[in-house]
């Protein structure tokens, strides 16, 4: 118990003193997850609008599949990306394995179903007369999609935040394709995993606290957004 308490005190000291290693790892985690979330949002917002506003055979099935992929295991995505980008893989020639780039690609694959599914769901919640009104006022297809997304902005934003939350908290994928290389691909979650297995709790606890604070901030923002 004393060991845990001492670890916690040291962890807090590391945070308060803005320890360079802690800050660097936290900064890298945020940068990788923010990048993957931005890319996934740029794909999922227009794609969600296209799926929502068009009728096509198999639409319901597609939405069901996307929703099933919400709980895609991180190690499954990790394995898929590993096979794809490893030296012997079909696009291994890109030589991006064990880099932040491949971690971003993996996270985009991981969180896209969440962002896409929640975008479609958010748009479905918008009164159909909004789109009819826009069309009747002379909006083009694109302008109609934009105003509909705008009307659903709070629910859409909630979906984007959920995606970011999943990206920053995952560990399996980052370990498998990032390699947990110090100063290069080491993130909050992979460091916690490594340091805990080594029995070095101070750094793990400090990063754990930071991760919890990030989760708390995300949750607070989400609550504010959903109350609007």
């Amino acid at each position, binding site marked *: 118990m004393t060991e845990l308490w001492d670890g916690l005190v040291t962890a807090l000291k590391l945070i308060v003193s803005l320890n360079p290693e802690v800050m660097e790892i936290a900064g890298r985690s945020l940068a990788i997850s923010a990048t993957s979330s931005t890319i996934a949002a740029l794909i999922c917002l227009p794609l969600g609008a296209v799926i929502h506003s068009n009728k096509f055979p198999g639409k319901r099935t597609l939405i069901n599949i996307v929703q099933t992929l919400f709980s895609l295991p991180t190690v499954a995505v990790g394995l898929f990306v590993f096979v794809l980008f490893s030296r012997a893989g079909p696009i291994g020639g890109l030589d991006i394995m064990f880099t932040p780039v491949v971690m971003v690609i993996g996270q985009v694959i991981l969180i896209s179903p969440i962002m896409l599914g929640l975008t479609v769901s958010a748009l479905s919640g918008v009164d159909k007369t909004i789109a009819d009104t826009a*069309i009747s*006022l002379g909006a083009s297809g694109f302008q109609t999609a934009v105003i509909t997304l705008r009307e659903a902005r709070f629910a859409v934003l909630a979906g984007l935040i959920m995606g970011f939350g999943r990206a920053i908290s995952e560990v399996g994928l980052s370990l498998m394709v990032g390699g947990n290389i110090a100063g290069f691909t080491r993130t909050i979650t992979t460091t916690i995993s490594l340091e805990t297995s080594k029995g070095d709790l101070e750094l793990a606890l400090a990063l754990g606290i930071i991760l919890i604070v990030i989760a708390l901030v995300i949750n607070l923002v989400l609550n504010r957004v959903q109350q609007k």
Partner: protein
Amino acid sequence: MALIETVNIGQKYGGQYILKDVNLRINRGEVFALIGPTGAGKTTLLRLLDLLEVPASGSVYFDGMDVTANKSLRLQARRRMSFVLQKPAVFNMSVYDNVACGPRWRREKDATIRQRVSRALELAGMAEYINRNARTLSGGETQRVAIARALAIAPEVLFLDEPTANLDPISAAKIEEVLAHIIGDQKTTVVMATHNMSQGQRLAGRIGVIMNGEVLQIGSPGDIFSTPQKKEVAEFVGVDNILSGVIVNRDNELVTIDVNGSIIQAISDYPIGEEVHALIRPEDITLAPRKDASSARNTFEGRIARIFPVGALVRVEVACGFSLFAVVTKRSAEDLSLTVNKRVYATFKATAVHIIKRWH
């Protein structure tokens, strides 16, 4: 040339036709009202005319162009029209931004947008609400913002779907005032759907009666209300007395109709032996306690079967071998001491009877 023309357009939902073979010509600058009961297909027809939907059959022409299916032509044409939906939705933004949407989507200059929004809001009597969030407005105010939003694009055609339905009488009167102003001021072609017959009569130059997905009659308000061509139209426009009979005699234009043994005289071109409906508007029937020496050719003695108030008027059912419905003012009902079972004489002129052929 008509501004909007439909040729045999139809629409079906779930395999079932909602509209069938509608042929309409809307002329530039006119006010055209579609009247009919709820579920008759008025909204569907407006959606087809505003190019919100593609018809299942037939063609729609706008300003001479076939705009039935071509996406680009439809957008071009739609940008010359605007539509106020029955339950208008406002975007979750300020009243100004709501009204500015249409001009912005047409890439108008900022100064033009400001000018148009101000003018449209003034016309709709909503200028003081310009900075309010549109979602915080009442039903009547929302409707007026929707009208301002439609006017801000200076449409050549304005479609209105039940513009005063679900509003309290004061809000409805305000909307009607705005519409009357637009009609009188703007030279905009207006096509409105309403189940409120008197509203159609007040505002429109021509009326189309739509029932069960078919346009049954098109004409001036006077034609529709005084000389309906079909029994269904007559029933809808408030002709309470629809008597079935056969023409048994004629003397020039004056015909004699046998209605279950009672004789009615009317003016008609139909020949002897023709099975007809005799339509008499209740306001054309006068009631009196004694038989007057009136010039009216039709007088029936009967007893009052029922009396019930309708707004400021009183509707009286007289049993005289068949039922005749008359309306009198409350004052007249009191002066005549009209009570149930009282013996009265119901009188109407031959010219007050409109004859239509009976179809089996």
